């Protein structure tokens, strides 16, 4: 019986036109959001682990009202229960503040294994799994590309550029998984209908015993100083071949330090 908590993030759709608010936080109101695609891999791995043996998957998110959609999507994929930590005071929290909320929520749950995606598709920092592990006093194994559970032993393969290492951990552990672990499933109609009946708890900071002053934009250890949209792409340069096309191309590439 493996009890798994999968922490997931509700992010602005990466394919939509994303913007920032006047306080340099991500505009989450005017863009369609979804369960971070990288977190779907963690949900998939958790589901496969409990399908192989026995267990339960609880999906946990911290975010505004709409973040309930991320929990719902994971439940539709097959997770058993959901927890949504929703408190206005959390808005603008950086990774360190978010990790406090996540850790406090995880402490309230029964678990053997905590899983994360490798990074969010909006912040892209990839440090929250380690921060949460530190707060929980647990080992962290990040960027796993294959996860197996045998009793209380978790085996994780990490693929690096030069080598693959296989790591085992005994007892509780925090794992983040890459997008090489296997394609996440699409929710079926049956899964969507079943998700309606699955329990989702909504917790506030008070429920977790977290002081509002410890989180949010002001309490964050990092501050975004400014944001600017990337300049639009400029038109390409067309090289007209007048017998010296090759030379001109080489000169262009040399000027850009490609050759």
């Amino acid at each position, binding site marked *: 019986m493996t009890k798994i908590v999968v922490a997931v993030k509700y992010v602005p759709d990466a394919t939509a036109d994303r913007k920032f608010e006047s306080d340099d936080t991500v505009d989450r109101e005017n863009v369609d959001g979804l369960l971070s695609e990288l977190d779907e891999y963690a949900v998939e791995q958790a589901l496969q682990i409990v399908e192989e043996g026995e267990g339960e998957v609880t999906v946990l998110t911290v975010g505004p009202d709409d973040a309930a959609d991320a929990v*719902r999507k994971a439940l*539709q994929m097959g997770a058993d229960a959901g927890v949504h930590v929703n408190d206005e005071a959390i808005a603008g929290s950086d990774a360190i503040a978010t990790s406090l909320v996540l850790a406090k929520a995880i402490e309230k749950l029964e678990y053997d294994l905590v899983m994360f995606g490798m990074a969010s598709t909006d912040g892209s920092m990839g440090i929250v799994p380690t921060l949460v592990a530190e707060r929980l006093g647990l080992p962290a194994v990040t960027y796993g590309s294959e996860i197996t559970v045998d009793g209380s032993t978790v085996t994780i393969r990490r693929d690096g550029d030069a080598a693959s290492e296989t790591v085992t951990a005994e007892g509780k552990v925090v794992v983040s998984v890459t997008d090489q672990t296997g394609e996440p*499933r*699409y*929710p*079926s*109609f*049956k*899964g*969507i*209908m079943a998700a*309606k009946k699955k329990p989702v708890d909504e917790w506030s900071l008070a429920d977790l015993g977290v002081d509002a002053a410890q989180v949010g934009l002001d309490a964050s250890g990092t501050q975004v100083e400014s944001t600017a949209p990337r300049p639009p792409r400029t038109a390409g340069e067309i090289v007209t071949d007048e017998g010296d096309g090759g030379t001109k191309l080489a000169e262009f590439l040399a000027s850009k330090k490609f050759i």
Partner: protein
Amino acid sequence: MSFELSAEHQAFRHAVRDFAEGEVAPHVAAWDKAHHFPVDVVQKMGEMGLFGLTAPEELGGSGGDFTSLCVAIEELGRVDQSIGITLEAGVGLGINPILTFGTPEQQERWLPDLVAGRRLAGFGLTEPGAGSDAGATRTRAVLDGDEWVVDGAKQFITNSGSEITSLVTVTARTGTDERGRPEISAIMVPAGTPGFTAEAPYDKLGWHISDTHPLTLQDVRVPADHLLGDRGRGYAQFLATLDDGRIAIAALAVGCVQACLDLCVEYAGQRTTFGKPIGAKQGVAFQVADLAVMAEVGRTMTYRAAAMKDAGAPVKELKQAASIAKLYTSEAAVTATRIATQVFGGYGFMEEYPVARFYRDAKILEIGEGTSEVQRMLIARGLGLPVE
């Protein structure tokens, strides 16, 4: 009253859209060009539960409603019409006759694999000389001891010759009734039965990815218990499933119109002529607006018909709603693809742009599951007119 799909149907729409855009869209142009039937993707559709949508849970299905099936067909059809028809035919013609008329033994033998999308089944009704005029059926089946011996030919049979086809149910004359009319029965013929051949696939104008074959049956022997439903009721039983099929084809046509709309909105905003996007020109923008109207009208009438089916509406009203939806949406799809290729200009005539594929695929919508003429006849009859 509400005109909205339920939250669950909308979530399911998103899921199928993600599937279609993730698993089908990247490959569809190549498959279409190669006339390739992608068995692995069809089986993935099965894993997602699409073929078992409307089958009861005890048979491995999802116990979903007909509306959910229409949502799936529309969303697949928005990316590719062939994949949409593969699902429509797999459920409507492959699974439903066995689900509706099969004995428990027949259901147990055939449905688990069909519902899971591991295998496909076809329904052979149309013949070289008989389509909607089923009385002209020439394929014959004679009971010889405890075996049916089937001889004849079928044509345009979807999902009948793929490597995962497990059976085709064929209609055949099994005698003559007391009034001298042919007695038509339905007989299940497993793939691989000696004498049963799915001939080379058709060279079609569109639906290149769909598996469609002519069939020949020569001294084909199947056990007597392969009769599906009652002897002499084969055509009547098939007719009973046609209303569903018409609504499902309407959903497929709505997917086609929506695809044209989406492609045109994107293209008209990007493509510039004389220094402005072509969407700034009324000649283009107004046509795109018309596409939005067609999609909206088509979707409303299709899902109303589907909701009537799910609510168990009286047969006469359902038939009328089904024919009206099928007629309007299929003709709208042909119009929409004509508009879309025109908006794309010269590029719309190039196979590298999806609108060209939709242009080729749309025409069959006005023909399959009862032509536009048949729909008009049925609608007129529904109004009480003595039309022939």
